[in-house]
């Protein structure tokens, strides 16, 4: 019987304690904000939408390799030695055309693993976080600055150059075979590039 009354008493008291807590909060200022009108300042390390500065991209494909969800697609075309693609802002020499540099931001998991291996720091995460689209195709970002025509042109030039080189090599080989059996290696146009 004593327990019964104690239970009833505890029930009433704890309800009143709880009501006191909520009453106090009725007059504390809200912690929420009116989002589109008021925006929080993001910290400088905020990881949101990816951005690629194509002026600095050397087409090394390391970001695509590092991506755990394969959302980066890169295609490259070798440049011929007679073309100067210029330097990146950190002074690396560009040797590849990058006609395709697509990021499917819908797949992106914002892990920033692509940012760290970049030798020229051209791919980075920005603080833009409002980029929803009505159409999923719009979420595939094409960063490449080359037009299709330019890419074709570059490809054609490379093909012509390769042909020329092959012809030269064949001629050299033939000449070497004719003169003495010590073949000289043909000069590779891009010794550093693996793509």
């Amino acid at each position, binding site marked *: 019987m004593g327990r019964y009354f104690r*239970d009833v008493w505890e029930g009433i008291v704890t309800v009143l304690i709880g009501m006191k*807590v909520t009453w106090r909060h009725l007059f504390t200022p809200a912690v929420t904000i009116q989002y589109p009108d008021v925006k929080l300042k993001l910290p400088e*390390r905020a*990881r949101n939408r990816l951005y690629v500065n194509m002026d600095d991209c050397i087409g090394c494909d390391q970001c695509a390799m*590092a991506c*755990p969800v394969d959302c980066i697609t890169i295609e490259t075309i070798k440049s011929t030695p007679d073309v100067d693609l210029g330097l990146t802002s950190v002074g690396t020499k560009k040797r590849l055309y990058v006609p395709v540099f697509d990021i499917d931001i819908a797949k992106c998991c914002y*892990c*920033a693993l692509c940012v760290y291996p970049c030798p020229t720091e051209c791919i980075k995460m920005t603080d833009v976080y409002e980029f929803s689209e009505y159409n999923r195709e719009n979420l595939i970002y094409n960063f490449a600055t080359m037009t299709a025509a330019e890419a074709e042109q570059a490809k054609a030039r490379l093909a012509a150059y390769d042909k020329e080189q092959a012809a030269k090599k064949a001629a050299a080989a033939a000449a070497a075979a004719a003169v003495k059996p010590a073949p000289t290696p043909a000069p590779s146009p891009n010794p550093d590039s693996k793509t």
Partner: protein
Amino acid sequence: MQETMTSPAGVPGFGRALKTEEMVLNMGPQHPSTHGVLRLEVVVDGEIVVDVVPHIGYLHRCFEKHCEHMTNYQQVIPYADRMDYVAAMSNELGYVVAAERMLKIKVPERVEYIRVIMAEFSRIVSHLIAIGTYGMDIGAFTPFLYCMRDRERVLDIFEQTCGARLLYNYMWIGGLSHDVSPDFADKVKSFCKYFRPTIKELNDLLSYNKIFIRRTANVGVLPREVALNYAVSGPVLRGSGVKWDLRKNDSYSVYDKLDFEIPIGAGKKGTVGDCWDRYMVRIHEMEQSVNIIEQAVDKLPTGDVQAALPKRIRPDAGETYARTETPKGELGYYIVSDGSATPFRIKVKSPCFVNLSALPAISRGAMIADLVAILGSIDIVLGEVDR
């Protein structure tokens, strides 16, 4: 009154006095309190649960298969984040501990301390969600919002440190992605100072509320032997009165240099191992986590946050099993390597998966409302159950 209700078999004449028919109730995959996409096939006799068959797999994302198709060990971390997405830091810690044991890497002291701080924050975050949603399962909506409010403060610290609020990719093999910001220690301390009184407020509002106690005490009792046989872990195990915490019993990182208590369920309001005990263990663990964080911040040494690593991470052929104490329990990574840069096999022993498997054993004979309470007290995250 509750003793008889939770064990209908003990009610004289139960099942005989009336001709009743059992009904199969489909709880989920879309149900407000299954905490995700869990489906419970519940056989009920009126309001009383006769049997529960959990059906899982709705959130299966092939974590283990993905791991076998990575280009390196580092790439697993964003996926590990996404298992228990409310405590991603703890998952990362488990994975990097396993991978570093595999690679025999020793990380700098500073890294270890920062990792511990982050993992404990992540424990607070996870327990806040567990407690808040538990309150909501029981019917109290307000504690949930208070928990979310406090959680945001921790997420702010996370965001400032690594740039992401939920899925961090912060702990890397051999180090961290960023060093902490200069005002980190101040922020952490001010949070700790803020957080202790809010735990008390939560206790006033929810933990010691008579209705809440009535709903949770003596409900879903998981006895010690059953708990061990089901290999449950974390707060569920400790709620059953087993003093077992991997941070102390199988210490990793720098937990052995920090001083903290292991709270266990004592049956203060009912039986040892009931829902209230499991709930209260979480509350006390948050207090302990605050203690750990304060100590770790004080001890935080200076130094580098990256160990010297080979360019390509390529462990020797072999295997390792490393387990860590996440907020949900014992998270084990079984990593098998064939000597290449890609893991041969990664098996995750998920604490939620194991804890959930004990659900049918403890919810038979309870009521539908109790089933919700029991499920909430087990605190599952379906991302980790299904992987």
